[in-house]
């Protein structure tokens, strides 16, 4: 058997786990590991400019590929800088392993230089965390970390590695375990057959059904099964912000996404339905609005891999715990076998009603020749990229506009921080995608507020040649904050106005990139085409958009799903 040091075992374990990229930043407690990294060439390391960005990069990679991302940082500030990124991944159930250096074991608890209790600090925002207590444990700990991160409901796992665990001159026998034994962790591998049967009977008997799909469909790689079931039944489907792409947006059975800024027809259909089939969605407060007013006439079937997501906010009539792909597959088989068919009269009058709702609003917005509307930018981008780009966003109005007006037909292409709402997520996430999808168009749609939260990564983009396109919807304000202040605080714009913005073009150029400014509507299409033709360059596109635009529809606070503002003056 091979004898390796702890640091070499760690890197070998990553190789044996099939890890291609790790994103990180070196420092004292991680230096043995960085040295081991230097002496091999299988695992490639991407040096970021701030640890938070390393986590978002790993996250973007994970969301686009479905594989767990990997981060390596040092102890203390290196580790604590990852927390926002870890929390982002935790809220959206993204598989990820974060390897953190730690001060040597004998110093732990002594307030040593760059010591932080990372196990304690990260505990509320991880699926699990592990610390290495003996170098020999390293292969097993690494195997466990990836296993836990990527099975069941995925999530981030932190591994804390004291420096003396990786000492170069102490060597141990290395063998990478094939299997993980965890007596207390057994994620469900299929749903309960009786419950599935009951659910199918209810589905086929429904008169006003809606399928409500979430990010779990994408994480569970179940888009195909879902699409097949929806088409077979002929039922309307809506999805959450996290579920965008799980069903083709251009299909006529798709109602758009639902919730606070969802489409009118989605929210109306949900509210008036008699049966909701929730698939890998968690009835988040940005979806349900006031829970006591939620969909009064609907019975609910809820499929989720995580039992704790079922009946957490909204009670399910038929709970099904299991992986969505396996459960949907069984449902499909039962629907095909069943002699019962959906009531076609009821279904056609339900569709007629939905089409009326769709025609009533239709995601309209006011436009004129003087000013560029943010919605127009997104629609133009969607047209110019054939709806086929990877789109990473930050958080705010631009994120909602991108989600509303870019039509995604495929899963894993819409990449955003849905649960935590992390500004600064977009650029590093886009970088993580571009690195592994060099031939695909990768857009980072952002705002002048969000982009400045991780703008230092322009430097990383230069180092690794990551020609993402940054689309800055510049309204010179923290748009969503301002919108809430307009609506709820009589337009008192407390701290939502950004004075002294940098010249983004010069800034991009100073990092060695290109910059393009678009101020006139007449230039929009031509300039965006030019930008998209610059395949090998990172282009920072600074677009001056309407400073006063709001995102609509917007659900009325504490109302039901159907209570919405449709424009600044129109409330239903």
């Amino acid at each position, binding site marked *: 058997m091979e004898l390796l040091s702890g640091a070499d075992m760690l890197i070998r374990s990553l190789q044996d786990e099939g890890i291609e990229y790790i994103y990180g930043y070196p420092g004292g407690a991680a230096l043995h590991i960085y040295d081991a990294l230097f002496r091999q060439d299988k695992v490639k390391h991407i040096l970021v400019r701030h640890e938070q960005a390393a986590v978002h990069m790993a996250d973007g990679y994970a969301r686009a590929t479905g594989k767990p991302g990997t981060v390596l940082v040092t102890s203390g500030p290196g580790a604590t800088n990852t927390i926002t990124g870890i929390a982002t991944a935790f809220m959206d159930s993204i598989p990820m392993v974060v390897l953190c250096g730690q001060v040597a074991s004998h110093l732990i608890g002594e307030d040593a230089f760059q010591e932080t209790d990372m196990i304690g600090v990260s505990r509320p925002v991880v699926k699990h*965390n592990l610390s290495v207590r003996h170098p020999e444990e390293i292969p097993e700990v690494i195997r466990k970390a990836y296993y836990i991160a990527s099975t069941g409901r995925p999530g981030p796992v932190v591994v804390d590695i004291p420096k003396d665990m990786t000492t170069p001159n102490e060597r141990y026998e290395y063998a990478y375990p094939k299997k993980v034994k965890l007596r*207390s962790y057994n994620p469900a591998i299929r749903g309960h057959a009786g419950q599935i049967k009951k659910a199918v009977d209810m589905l086929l008997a429904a008169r006003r059904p809606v399928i409500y799909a979430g990010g779990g469909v994408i994480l569970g790689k179940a888009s195909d099964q879902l699409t097949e079931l929806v088409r077979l039944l002929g039922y309307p489907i809506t999805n959450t912000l996290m579920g965008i792409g799980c069903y083709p947006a251009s299909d006529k059975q798709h109602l758009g996404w639902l919730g606070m800024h969802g489409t009118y027809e989605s929210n109306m259909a949900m509210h008036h339905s008699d049966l909701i089939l929730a698939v890998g969605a968690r009835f988040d407060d940005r979806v349900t609005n006031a829970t006591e007013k939620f969909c009064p006439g609907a019975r609910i079937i809820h499929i989720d891999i995580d039992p*704790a997501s079922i009946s957490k906010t909204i009670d399910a009539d038929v709970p099904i715990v299991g992986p969505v792909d396996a459960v949907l597959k069984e449902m499909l088989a039962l629907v095909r076998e069943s002699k019962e068919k959906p009531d076609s009269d009821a279904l056609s009058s339900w569709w007629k009603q939905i089409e009326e709702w769709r025609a009533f609003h239709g995601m309209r917005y006011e436009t004129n020749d003087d000013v560029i509307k943010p919605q127009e930018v997104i629609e133009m981008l969607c047209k110019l990229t054939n709806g086929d780009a990877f789109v990473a966003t930050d958080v705010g109005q631009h994120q909602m506009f991108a989600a509303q007006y870019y039509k995604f037909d495929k899963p894993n292409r819409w990449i955003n921080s849905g649960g935590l709402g992390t500004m600064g997520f977009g650029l590093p996430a886009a970088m993580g995608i571009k690195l592994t999808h060099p031939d695909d168009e990768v857009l980072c749609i952002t705002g002048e507020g969000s982009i400045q939260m991780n703008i230092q990564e322009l430097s990383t983009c230069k180092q690794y040649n990551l020609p993402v396109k940054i689309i800055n919807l510049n309204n010179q304000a923290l748009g969503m904050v301002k919108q809430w202040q307009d609506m709820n605080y009589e337009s008192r714009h407390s701290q939502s106005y950004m004075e002294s913005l940098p010249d983004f073009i010069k800034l991009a150029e100073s990092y060695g990139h290109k910059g393009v400014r678009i101020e006139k509507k007449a230039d929009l299409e031509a300039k965006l085409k030019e930008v998209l033709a610059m395949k090998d360059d990172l282009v920072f596109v600074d677009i001056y958009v309407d400073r006063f635009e709001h995102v609509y529809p917007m659900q009325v606070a504490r109302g039901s799903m159907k209570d919405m503002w449709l424009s600044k003056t129109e409330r239903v």
Partner: protein
Amino acid sequence: MRRIISVLLENEPGALSRVVGLFSQRNYNIETLTVAPTEDETLSRLTVTTTGSDKVIEQITKQLNKLIEVVKLVDLTEGAHIERELMLVKLKATGSQRAEIKRTVDIFRGQIVDVTSSVYTVQLAGDSEKLDGFIQAVGTAGVLEVVRSGVSGIARGEKVLSL
């Protein structure tokens, strides 16, 4: 409603902090908490008493089950069960009080485990209500110090919580 949740937990560093952390992160109550290793040294048995609606209790058990180190758990209050708590209490005991306290201790089937000229230390086991009852009976004025272990519980009959 008050519930007693009994948990088999991996006997590992950090496992307990995850359980306690979960309660504070998710805004659940902990009324009492006891924990000690079992006959199988790889496992700890943890008993937590909490209050909440059925919905909250359901979430607590589901969230606890999600913790990797939680091997098994049971809500003892769902069936017949025995609960016990140990209390050590120091009482002011001078003059005629001494006999009166002794009588009360006997009624509650407790024991006086330490004696000085002015203080009795009493040991008492039972369910939480019995311990409350004892304090009430001797009167809070004479109570110098109270230490309670928190509730431990076990199901009645054949039912066992084990691997």
